[in-house]
Structures are given as structure tokens and as C-alpha cells.
């Protein structure tokens, strides 16, 4: 057992897609199994928390944590894994940037609970009960993790060694990253792995001319030309400010990029960069006309920070 790599794969506030992306490496997962003992991987393997707690510090060679940190259990296990593991990998967009669950940071915990448990269309009429961190039932005490006021990315709660972006990461990139661990060929600590430095546009096969936009279109308002840059046709695409590495899987299929690989190298705030980039193609010098053109972009914030509200400079809404 000591000769094989010891690894743990865990999910915080995620969806299982990153765990599936590991299975999507197909035969490669069998190669991993040949050189590694997977000690914790709740989707596929029966390791429990008590097994993790019983490990020595640093016993694990690699902990791959996917999903965001939404509640006290996510944080607790993240800290435990950090202690028990030599390398901590933030796997996928949620661990790296907060991901889709990060959109919750644009609303509030109160509103979420109100909608989910009190107000929604199919809630039992008259219900006033809301889940509690601790409740008493039939003389027993039951506890639940505390739902935090906001979502955190993994590096906000523990020291992270590497970041593997993607929602989910593309299987070929996953293979390359895991092979690097197996071979011990690791880049400098803090690196983004499994992706390139440059933005998506460089790898996108669509032809790019000049972008001068007088009108933006919602994707269902126009049948966009399949060979020309989407942004040039007035369809919002985040590729201009998104790190490449996914194989351009969305624009190649006719669908605009939504930024799941995060910002390109050296960029601090992906949404701010998108604001700059999109503003720069607006073809007008008249303030009123500019407002009119930009009015064709409803929910720009939700677009610009689709996967990265917790990773943004502002991190969450401050509405009282």
C-alpha cells in the first residue's frame, strides 16, 4: 500500500460533474487505479470521514477537491484534507472560482431560504419550518452543516497548491494533470494546470474581422453565422476574456462561451475584464446611443461573473 500513490477525491458544494469528468477519462481511470489507492471518493468508493480522520498528516499524496465551499461541512473537510495531504488541487471551476453556486453571492442566504422553504409554488401551504443547524426530533438532537452567508472558493479557506479550471475540466487536460502528479513533474506551486495562458479567441476557429457593434442580440433573436466570430455578430461571448484549454467546445458547436475556464493568465478579475472588452466594441460616441446599445445586454453581471462571483474582487453582494 505504501508504494501506491494515496489519493482522495472530494466534493464540496458541487454537482458531481467533476467526479464524472474523471470517469470520462475512460480507460485512463484504470491506469490511475493501478498506481493509486483511492482512499476517499464518495461517488464511487466507500471511504468514510472516520477513515480520513484516522489518517496521518501528509499520508495522502494528493487531495483533489471539487465544488465550492458553501457550508461548514465543506470547510471542515477541506481543512482536514489539507492537513492529511501533501498536495491540494482545486479541481474544476467551483473549487477554483466558486462556480455556478457562486451566483448565490449575488442574492442572500435569507432570500434563498425564503424561496426554497417558505414561498415557492409547491411549498406546503402555511409552512413556517426552515432547516436548522440543530434541531430536536423525538428527543434526539440532529445537526446539519451551517449554510454560510456566502460561497467561498477553495483557496479562500485553505492553502491550495494547484488549480485545474473547467466546468468540468476537459478529459484530456485531466489526464495530463494527473500524469504530472504520478510522474512527479509538478509546476511551481500556485500554478493553473490543465489550461493555457491565453484567451479562447486565439484557439477559436471562427473568422475574426473587426468588431463594431451597433446592436447586441439575445441568442434566440438571431440565427448566427456558424463560421464568423459570435461577438462580431452581436452575440455575447465570453471567450475574449476566458482562459483557453477546453478545446473551444461551446463556440465550435454554435453556442457562445460563458467563461467556465476563468480568466486568462495575469488577469485579476474576469468580470471586470469582460466589461472592458465588451465596452470596447461598442460602436458609438454618443452617450445616449451607447446606453441604448448596452441596454441590449440584460444581466451583464450574471454573464460576466457566471462562474466566478466568489473569485471576483467584490466577491458578494453588499445589499443590506
Amino acid at each position: 500500500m505504501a508504494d501506491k500513490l494515496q489519493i482522495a477525491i472530494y466534493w464540496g458544494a458541487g454537482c458531481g460533474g467533476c467526479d464524472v469528468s474523471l470517469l470520462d477519462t475512460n480507460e485512463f481511470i484504470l491506469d490511475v487505479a493501478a498506481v493509486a489507492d483511492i482512499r476517499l471518493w464518495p461517488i464511487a468508493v466507500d471511504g468514510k470521514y472516520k477513515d480520513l480522520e484516522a489518517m496521518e498528516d501528509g499520508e495522502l499524496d494528493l487531495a483533489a477537491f471539487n465544488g465550492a465551499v458553501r457550508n461548514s461541512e465543506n470547510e471542515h473537510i477541506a481543512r482536514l484534507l489539507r492537513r492529511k495531504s501533501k498536495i491540494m488541487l482545486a479541481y474544476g471551476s467551483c473549487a477554483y472560482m466558486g462556480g455556478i453556486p457562486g451566483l448565490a453571492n449575488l442574492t442572500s442566504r435569507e432570500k434563498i431560504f425564503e424561496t426554497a422553504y417558505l414561498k415557492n409554488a409547491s411549498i406546503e401551504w402555511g409552512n413556517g419550518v426552515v432547516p436548522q443547524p440543530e434541531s430536536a426530533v423525538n428527543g434526539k438532537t440532529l445537526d446539519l452543516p451551517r449554510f454560510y452567508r456566502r460561497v467561498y472558493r477553495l483557496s479562500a479557506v485553505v492553502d491550495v497548491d494547484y488549480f485545474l479550471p473547467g466546468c468540468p475540466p476537459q478529459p484530456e487536460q485531466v489526464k495530463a494533470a494527473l500524469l504530472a502528479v504520478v510522474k512527479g513533474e509538478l509546476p511551481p506551486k500556485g500554478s493553473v494546470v490543465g489550461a493555457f495562458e491565453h484567451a479562447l479567441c486565439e484557439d477559436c476557429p471562427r473568422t475574426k474581422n473587426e468588431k463594431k457593434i451597433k446592436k447586441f442580440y439575445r441568442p434566440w433573436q438571431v440565427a448566427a453565422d456558424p463560421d464568423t466570430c459570435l461577438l462580431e455578430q452581436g452575440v455575447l461571448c465570453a471567450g475574449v476574456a476566458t482562459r483557453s484549454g477546453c478545446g473551444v467546445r461551446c463556440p465550435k458547436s454554435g453556442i457562445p462561451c460563458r467563461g467556465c475556464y476563468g480568466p486568462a493568465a495575469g488577469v485579476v478579475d474576469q468580470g471586470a475584464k469582460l466589461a472592458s472588452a465588451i465596452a470596447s466594441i461598442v460602436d458609438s460616441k454618443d452617450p445616449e446611443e451607447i446606453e441604448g446599445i448596452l441596454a441590449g445586454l440584460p444581466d451583464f453581471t450574471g454573464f460576466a461573473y457566471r462562474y466566478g462571483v466568489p473569485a471576483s474582487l467584490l466577491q458578494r453582494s453588499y445589499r443590506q
Partner: protein
Amino acid sequence: MTSKITIDPITRLEGHGKISIFLDDAGAVEDCYFQIPELRGFEQFVVGRPIEELPRIVTRICGVCPASHHMASAKAVDGCFGNTVAPLAHKLRDMYYNAHFVHSHTAHFYALAAPDFVLGPDADPAVRNILGVVAKVGLEIGGKVIRVRGLAQEAQRIIGGRNTQDIWCIPGGVYKGLKPEELEQIKPWVDEFYDFAQFSLQLFRDVVLGNPGYVDLIVNGPYTLDVHNMGLVDENNAPNFYDGKVRVVDYEGKEIHKYEPKQYAEYVAEHVEPWTYLKFPYLKKRGWKGFVEGIDSSLYCATPLARLNVADRMATPKAQEGFEEMYRTVGGHPCKALLVQHWARLVEMVQNAETLQAYCADPEITGDHVRMVDLPITGEGVGIVEAMRGTLTHHYTCDDNGICTSANLIVGTTNNNAPIQMVTKKVAQALIKPGVEPDQGILNMVEMAFRAFDPCYSCATHSLGKMPLEAAFYQKGELVKTIKRNC
């Protein structure tokens, strides 16, 4: 003798959960709670987003069944645009969706369920997983599983552009159609899916039905509940995973409800308990009665077995043979033995494959007109599909600008929350004997109760040791430095 046993986390499923078992002084199981500790809040944080973006956001409710959410969402969005959809788009979506079922059912059966049967429920946990299954059944079969799953995903990618975290549905239809050369690629694979579905059924017969201990467990064991069944059916009361009416049938075979998706809120309501983040759907007209079985119960299952229980027949001939064989063996239709879900899943896979074969032979499937562009905004829509693990409902409203103003989701596994709670308790009570500390095999058998449901708790909860000292320094909410002593 411990007074509380916790299984944490539950494993070989999608999502988070823990089982808390309380023992009385004699050591018998007094109470058992199946708690779901996760919530993300999708129903709230999609508000304010353009409604056409929702099918790409809600796929992140679940990375195992994103296509289910994508389809249900697309249909709810269709409703917001006056149900203006190119007819070919519906066919293509159904084709894509059946391919998704093939890969998801394969993954569940072999990776999540099979370890309990191929290796035994009390096998060493270190090997009781997909890797152990492959080691036991051999690389050839393991290779087949991986191949079929990979091809089904590739078929999805060819039809819809991406095979996970789907992107393809749009108001008016879908982004791309199927080219003739793409269809030619898929055709031979679809025949492989059919063969593999039959192969899996045979494996089930050999490994499970051929083992009298398992048969006894399935038919006579505590994994059974007197609750009702829900599923989508077509006009012939055969299962349809993409569209149809919702049918609810009691465990004696009598129809209780049959309704159009847009009426769902008249028939289903959700109850809340403080000890779990997951809600408990129930039949609204009967009212919440608690965790109670029986013919008057307001609880129901929505699972592959429930789908077959509400159906009068399958939609395709070879699947129909499988349907008849299954119910003959288990002693009649409908069936309450919950472990039969694993079998029902495989029968469904046969229908998935036959449906795909029919689409491959359809001359219209490679048509061009896959989307409509002039769309009215009508403001509300309900989309119901069958997720692999149960009836999935997405209900949206939007304003005149097509911005989402509300979202209500009742997700596949959520439907089964109360039944899972009840059967877990039942199994715990049956298997944990007073005075005998349960070993990991027994505890795993308690877990087998929920595993049969192929649950997806990320879906269901959408909604979002010398005195060691560690000082963590935060700046603007971000960790910048840690200082440790003795740890």
C-alpha cells in the same frame, strides 16, 4: 454498546448525505434519520438571469444527469416563449436524451450498484467499488462498460455539441441539427447499445437472479414499501422519458392521478423538516400525513421501477419482453420490492436502445429546420421530463424582457425523499440486532436501501487532535497566511 451510529458520508451515489441511527437501551434501532446536508439555492439565484441562460445554468444542479435538467429547463423555457418549437427539435431532443439514459444507466448499474452484488454487500470497502468490479468480472467486460458509456456520450456530443453540461437547447428548438455523415457514425453504436443492454440483463440474471441469497433479499427482504408510483407516460401509457403526462398509480395498480405538466402544482406539494435541507414532496390532494405507508399514504416513489409500475406496457417490443419477464419473476405488476429498481433500469435501457434505433431509421432526422426564430414572450412554462432517477419538474416565470422572475424545481430524487427515509429506517431496524455491534457490511446493507434509488442529492437540494494551534490570517475574506504550532 453505542447509542448512535452515523454513516457519514453515504457513498456510491451522487451527492451528500448522512444516516443517523439511534439505538435504545437494549440496542435495538429506535429511530433513523436520513439527512441531506447540502443546499445551493438554484431556485433563488437564477432569478434575474435571462431565461434562455437557465438551461445552461441548471445543468450544474447535477453533473451526472445534466441532460435531464437541460431538457426540463428547455421545456419550461419553451413555455415562456409560447411553446414555439421546431417539431424536428423535439425529435432530436428525445434522441439525445435516450442516448443520455444509456450512458447514465450504464454508469449507475456498473459503478454504483454492481459492487454490492458482484463483490457482495459485506466485501472489503477498499475493493467494493467499480475498480473491484472490473477486477472481478475481468477487463473484457470492464472494457465493454467503458466503451458503451463512452460511445453513448460521444453520440450525445455528435448530436448536441457537448456530452456533459449540455449547451444545445435554445428557445425555439436546438442550436444544431444532425448531418447525414454524423448519423452514419452513430448508427452502428446504437446497435451496440442494444446488445449491451441485453448483455447487462443477462449479467443481472446470472449474478443476481442466479444467487438465491440475493433473490431472497430482493423479494423477501426489508427493502419494500407500501407507497405509490409516479412516472411520465405517452398516450399508450408506455414510459416516455422526454414528454407526456404524469401518471400516479397506487401500489395495487389503481390509477390515482393523470395530469398535464402545467397542472403539477395542483397535485404535488413539498413538506419541510428542520433536520434536513431536502424537502419532502407528497400528493397534495391527500395532504401531508407524515412518514406513513399504506393505501391512503400521500407518499410516492419516482424511479425506474415506479415508471414501469405506472406503465401498462413498454413503448418498444424487446423492452416489452423484458418488462413481462421482470414482472413474471417478481410476482406481478406493480411491484413493491425496491431492489427491483436495478432490474427496471436495465429494461429501460433496452427501450432507450430501441428508440435510438428507430430514430436512426427515421428519414426526417437529418433535416435542417431545427429552430424557430420569431418568438413571442408569454412569460411562464413548466417542463417535466423523467430524469434517470425520477420525475423532474422545472417551472419558470419571466418578465416581458425574458428575464427570469421565479423558478420552482421538484427534482427526481426529491420525490423519493420520504420513501428513502422510511426504507432506510426499516432496513436498519431489520438488520441491526440488539446487542450486536453492526459491522461495515451491515452498515453497507443499510446504504443499499438508498442506493437502489440511484439518488442524486446535488439535484435534490438544488437549492443551494499536543495542543495543535493554527492561526489563519485573512484579508478581505481571503486566506493569505497560516501559522502553525504542533500541527
